[in-house]
């Protein structure tokens, strides 16, 4: 397409100036800071119930160790929690003041342990190596697959950025990263998203971002190595006790305040349904808002450092995990009460084959960088100024004021998280680049639903083969209608469209049919003469879901 290859310089060339390097240098001090912060917040909210909280935590931790032990879990766990328990039992509850003192000490102890456990292990030298490895290694794989022949392994013809297009507000995010802390919030469809984003961040010349990675991924040595070196901290989804969650939030909060750019997948986990996230996890997002408020508070009227939220949408024609994901989604919505999370990432071997497939077989991938926003979703310009919808400059600090002073109001901030999260979802839909493959899937599935409007979703998915045939001409008509509608939305700036969508209808459909679910064992759609045959309703449903949320169903 004649794209110019852009090379971005590093915005902070000296690695020792990277906030993340500073953080890892003073790791111990930072862990203390996090624990102290969590401790203070916890006390101000839960004072008086500390003992119960600790008891509950001990109870849950014991259950977890018994029911769901992992390789990464520290050896001394059992001993540690028994120790905590006996310390708690030794407290003389008659002496109220002394008892409260002791309980607080135990709380602090637990928070320090959690904080230590969460903290990342970033190392400069590892980072450099991992970075080289990713760029170099993947480029080799790519060449091997695309340019035929063994010698191609050494070819420099193709580069990772031939395959991965980083588009959108690229200069803007570089500017913002110099001005304040960037919190990047990408959509999440595939397990490789974090590596893609990691690569994109590095490609854009940004210093590494920290991000919370599921502790389960650290079970695998090779992944653990990469994650540590790429700035990951550990999130243990098994631990849902308030003491742990407070510590985790404090970690994110303090890191943001220290200027560490952060990456949240606000959807929490990969989208199971194939739909763009509409329900975001409030926990981590709330730390961005809280951190910004605290930054204003400690600036004490002087100009404070800013937090910028940057939505990112990752687009591809197909998701390797789609069949497994959609199955899981259907099981869940089908009210099956117990399901086991299928972990297709359980061994190093599986990962390597996965990566190989992903980089060699996958058709093009684009990463769209959205426009930066403040913590309430107002757009910011290159100088970091916020604007309301009418273009008036606003000061985000004003959102926290009451009676001319910054006040702390949890309920208010919870509401702000909701505002921010619906703004992010809005932006996702805007930056979502519709590929022909998404639209053919949508058209076909909606036609199927219309034809069998008496059936519920589960029965539509189970239709017999003879009902899974669509007439091409009819399909084309509907496809055209939907594309026109999309073009209108595109003009209003409510969605983005890939270049290939502009082709003639037949060509565009063909492109879509060729690419939808390209490398699955069973292609969802196949063209046969003047019929379109649906081969796999589940994956068809998955890809169709990507187009939800635009109100397109009315136009078919």
């Amino acid at each position, binding site marked *: 397409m004649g794209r110019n290859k852009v090379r971005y310089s590093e915005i902070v060339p000296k690695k020792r100036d990277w906030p993340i390097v500073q953080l890892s240098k003073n790791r111990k001090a930072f862990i203390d800071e996090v624990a102290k912060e969590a401790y203070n917040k916890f006390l101000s909210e839960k004072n008086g119930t500390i003992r119960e909280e600790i008891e509950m935590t001990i109870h849950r931790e014991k259950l977890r160790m018994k029911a769901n032990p992992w390789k990464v879990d520290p050896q001394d766990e059992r001993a540690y929690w028994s120790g905590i328990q006996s310390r708690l039992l030794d407290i003389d509850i008659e002496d109220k003041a002394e008892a409260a003192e002791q309980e607080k000490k135990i709380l602090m102890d637990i928070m320090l342990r959690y904080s230590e456990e969460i903290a990342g292990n970033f190392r400069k030298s590892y980072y450099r190596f991992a970075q080289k490895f990713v760029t170099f290694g993947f480029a080799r794989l790519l060449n091997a697959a695309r340019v035929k022949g063994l010698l191609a392994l050494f070819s420099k013809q193709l580069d990772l950025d031939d395959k991965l297009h980083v588009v959108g507000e690229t200069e803007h995010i570089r500017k913002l990263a110099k001005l304040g802390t960037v919190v990047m919030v990408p959509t999440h469809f595939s397990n490789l998203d974090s590596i893609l984003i990691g690569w994109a961040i590095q490609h854009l010349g940004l210093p590494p971002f920290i991000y919370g990675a599921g502790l389960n991924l650290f079970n695998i040595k090779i992944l653990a190595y990469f994650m540590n070196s790429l700035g990951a901290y550990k999130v243990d989804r098994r631990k849902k006790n308030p003491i742990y969650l407070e510590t985790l939030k404090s970690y994110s909060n303090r890191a943001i305040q220290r200027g560490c750019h952060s990456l949240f997948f606000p959807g929490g986990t990969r989208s199971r349904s194939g739909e763009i996230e509409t329900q975001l996890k409030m926990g981590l997002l709330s730390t961005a808002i809280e951190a910004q408020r605290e930054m204003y508070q400690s600036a004490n009227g002087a100009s404070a450092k800013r937090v910028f939220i940057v939505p990112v949408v990752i687009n591809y024609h197909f998701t390797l995990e789609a069949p497994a994901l959609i199955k899981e989604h259907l099981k869940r919505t089908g009210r099956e009460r117990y399901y086991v999370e299928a972990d297709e990432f359980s061994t190093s071997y599986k990962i390597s084959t996965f990566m190989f497939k992903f980089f060699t077989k996958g058709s093009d991938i684009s990463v769209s960088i959205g426009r930066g926003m403040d913590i309430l979703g107002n757009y910011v310009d290159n100088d970091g100024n916020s604007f*309301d919808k009418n273009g*008036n400059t606003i000061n985000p600090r*004003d*959102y926290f004021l009451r009676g*001319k*002073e910054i*006040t702390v109001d949890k309920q208010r901030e919870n509401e702000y998280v909701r*505002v921010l999260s619906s703004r992010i979802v809005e932006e996702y839909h805007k930056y979502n680049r519709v590929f022909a493959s998404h639209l053919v899937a949508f058209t076909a599935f909606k036609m199927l639903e219309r034809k069998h409007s008496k059936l519920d*979703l589960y029965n539509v998915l189970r239709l017999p083969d003879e009902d899974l045939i669509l007439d091409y001409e009819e399909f084309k008509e509907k496809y055209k209608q939907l594309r026109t509608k999309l073009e209108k939305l595109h003009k209003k700036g409510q969605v983005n469209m890939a270049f290939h969508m502009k082709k003639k209808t037949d060509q565009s459909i063909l492109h879509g049919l060729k690419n939808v679910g390209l490398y699955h064992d069973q292609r969802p759609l196949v063209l046969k003469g003047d019929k379109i045959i649906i081969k796999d309703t589940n994956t068809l449903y998955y890809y169709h879901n990507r187009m939800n949320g635009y109100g397109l169903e009315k136009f078919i």
Partner: protein
Amino acid sequence: MDLKNSSKEIIGVVGAGSFGTAIANILAENSANVILYVRSDEKEQSINKTRVSSGQKLADNIRITRDLQEVAESCEVIFPMVPSANFREMIVSLSPHLRPYHVLIHGTKGFDLHIPKKEKITRANPITREHVKTISEVIKEESSVLRVGCLAGPNLARELDQRKPAATVIASHFDEVISIGQRLLKNDRFMIYGSSDLIGIELCGILKNIIAVGAGTISGMDLGENAKALFISRGLVEMVYIGKALGGNAQAFLGLAGVGDLIATCTSNLSRNFTVGFRLAKGETLDEIIESMDEVAEGVKTINIVTQLAESYGVRSPITETLYKIIHGEMTINDAHAYLMSFPFRAEIDFLEQKPESFS
């Protein structure tokens, strides 16, 4: 924390209609200073001369202004109280002076209808929620203010002015907005309830005006109290259906802002909307009635909007539709009455049933 500044605090009220004036007086009672914005030159002069606004005597600590900028700059808390037809225009002029620290609690009980210039409403492109907004939605659309609330409940301005007891609901997603409203408005004869269902409470205030117009026609025809009670309770059911289709919950309609306000407006000739219906039944035309009233009866506009919305969303709304036909001269009041008496309702109440969740 708020209390220590309250003696110096200045509260803004925008719009000096009867409800705006009544609220300004209640605010002034709680020792706050109040700035009351009026739109026209004449009104400003006449109020300043007589200290009477919309038939109500103004408290001494209320100052009149015609400068929106001044309101925004001197007040953190503002009560916009202007008719829905002028609301967007007002907020657009106020908006450049508004900041995210402002708190807005409105008392407007009508929809905003906004159709972009290029767009045409046709059968293929019917009126939807995209074109019809509640007032809190308009505020959020046109300004940077997030801390928004609304006032709704049986609050006939004349009775408030006569210092008779009453209560109101302040709805907001923000607890702090509710408590600010309570602190500023509460006194020994005015109770304030809080609700977090902002849209639901707004819809209550808006939709009840439809039923008030209808109840007025029943009174005007002298059909008796049984008929009116029948009408009001069927009206409530219709409100709930429409309200749910537009994004509210059934609960709100059963509270003070729903049933409470409905009873007050449907049984009092102090209500403008009731009066419209009453006079229609007495044989006056709509134009004549509107001509002779000095304030807007929101119900008429609401009937027009809701009739179209109900059609777009496929909600059964026999009462609203019938009233629509009456005000557009497509049906006489007698025919309308006969029609409603024979309308086949299935069950008396079915909105409280929990439907099993369906997959979508």
